[in-house]
């Protein structure tokens, strides 16, 4: 009983930790490439917050570096949404909007609970509120900016839509009201998109593959390359300390 409880908690920590780790990595790829210098600082802040969360969560599940650097692709439990390549700035912002809104709702619920994630969630929810605000501000500016930015933002929200359904799949050990979260998420994201002169995309919110998605260790093709880059140096020196 205790063993399975702790296994469940470990799996849950991995799922949440991998989300934060992978998105942090993607945001880190922006360094030196951001559209304006002020955004270099902003994107790095968000990436650092997420990396901090990832380190706490992965440490709940084991050794943070072993987990980050020595697992194979199929063992990662992150959402497919967070592993999506940065694309243009609109894609990065759409990904941020979708994920940070979800993460805020999730952490808010976890913080109110008594489970193992409550202390982390209580601290992280403040960080995530800022991430959501950042995404909202930019969604408004891109959506309601120029014709070009409107078109790019629209394309981005639609392209990433099919990865959003996975956020509301139950995760064992993460005890939250998923249906309530989905409703709140749709309302929040829908409101931002409307104010940005955009609309909630209409296509399916999940892929058609029955085998599952990120939570089942099934990822998209670019993820393998991301991991290859991330893990290469660490794996080249087995047992070394850094």
């Amino acid at each position, binding site marked *: 009983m205790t063993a399975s409880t702790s296994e469940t908690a470990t799996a849950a920590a991995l799922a949440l930790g991998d989300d934060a780790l992978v998105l942090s990595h993607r945001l*880190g*790829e922006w360094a030196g490439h951001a559209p304006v*210098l002020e955004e270099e600082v902003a994107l790095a802040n968000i990436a650092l917050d997420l990396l901090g969360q990832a*380190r706490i969560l992965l440490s709940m599940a084991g050794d943070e570096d072993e987990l980050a650097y020595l697992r194979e692709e199929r063992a990662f439990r992150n959402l497919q949404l967070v592993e999506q390549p940065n694309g243009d700035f609109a894609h990065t912002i759409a990904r941020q909007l979708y994920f940070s809104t979800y993460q805020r709702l999730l952490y808010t619920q976890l913080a109110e609970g008594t489970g193992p994630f409550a202390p982390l969630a209580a601290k992280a929810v403040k960080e995530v509120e800022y991430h959501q605000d950042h995404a909202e501000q930019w969604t408004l500016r891109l959506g309601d900016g*120029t014709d070009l930015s409107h078109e790019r933002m629209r394309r981005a929200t639609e392209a990433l839509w099919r990865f959003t359904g996975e956020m509301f799949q139950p995760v064992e050990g993460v005890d939250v009201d998923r249906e309530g979260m989905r409703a709140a998420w749709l309302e929040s994201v829908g409101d931002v998109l409307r104010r940005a002169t955009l609309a909630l995309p209409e296509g399916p919110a999940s892929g058609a593959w029955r085998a599952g998605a990120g939570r089942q260790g099934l990822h998209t093709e670019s993820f393998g390359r991301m991991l290859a880059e991330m893990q290469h140096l660490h794996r080249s020196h087995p047992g*070394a300390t*850094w």
Partner: protein
Amino acid sequence: MATAAPHHTARAQADGQDEAAHAAAYEAVFDAAVAADERIEPRDWMPDAYRSTLVRQIAQHAHSEIIGMQPEANWITRAPSLRRKAILMAKVQDEAGHGLYLYSAAETLGTGRDELLDKLHTGRQKYSSIFNYPTLTWADVGAIGWLVDGAAITNQVPLCRCSYGPYARAMVRICKEESFHQRQGYELLLALSRGTPEQHEMAQDAVNRWWWPSLMMFGPPDDESSHSAQSMAWKIKRHSNDELRQRFVDICVPQAESLGLTLPDPDLVWNEERGHHDFGAIDWTEFREVLKGNGPCNEQRITQRRRAHDEGAWVREAAAAYAEKQATRAEPPAGHTDQQSNGTGSPQGDEPAGTADEHAEARA
């Protein structure tokens, strides 16, 4: 500040009068302020050459921070532990921040950031040549922190006392933050040096490659340095190139020993008589060639910078367009214009206008 009033008096009296006659008076006030180690502030009178030299120097410094992000960002996605990854991300972020502080300082002299960036992108303004070298292994991140940031700090600490206020203030802030950069580099190299033989070798190789370019960071020898004398007189440069280079070498030798790494200079030896280390001849041909654009990464660095700027144009335009729309939308109900007449006169005053405070607190 004691000098503020005389400046203003001098300017007020000179208004509408013969400028040539008063230029000398301005200059005397300026010279006296510099001589007394007072700070020159943006609205003070200053010689044109002082202004343009400062713009060039601060801009070059700002560009170096921005271009300097690239060689290190090159390793963010491959950092070998999560702790190192967080440190490196924070460091590269700081460099963006330092670039922004410095562009701000340059802008107080009347040159916009746009113009400065344009000059960087078109090769009309330089950045530190050191960033035209590649980061080939993880140890290079450590070598940059220890040697490149170390050299930069040696250069920059005296600038915290430079005569131009905004620049000096930016340098104070930057130096405070930079010392974390140098220490993380040293710690990174120490871990490698004490690690596996392969890691040790990686560290030594990086130090071998970065040592000489780091010494070049202090600029050409004093007898060949074109701007030095005037800049020293203006106190926007406080020590000579060779003086700072010597200081840096003396600092590095014992640090290298503690690292268990060798500095790649067979002529490096303690000179009892001078009380300093003697060191080998620097290859100034390489320095001049890299400066001219023939370094291993000149093309790559500027191309990436230009691409980021060009590809970001639509984002900046979108935000500007949105701001304009919002301003237009806000216009009709114009209800609180009364605040403008008294709210902004003293930005550093103790009592802020109420609504500004509420707004700020709400967001903070």
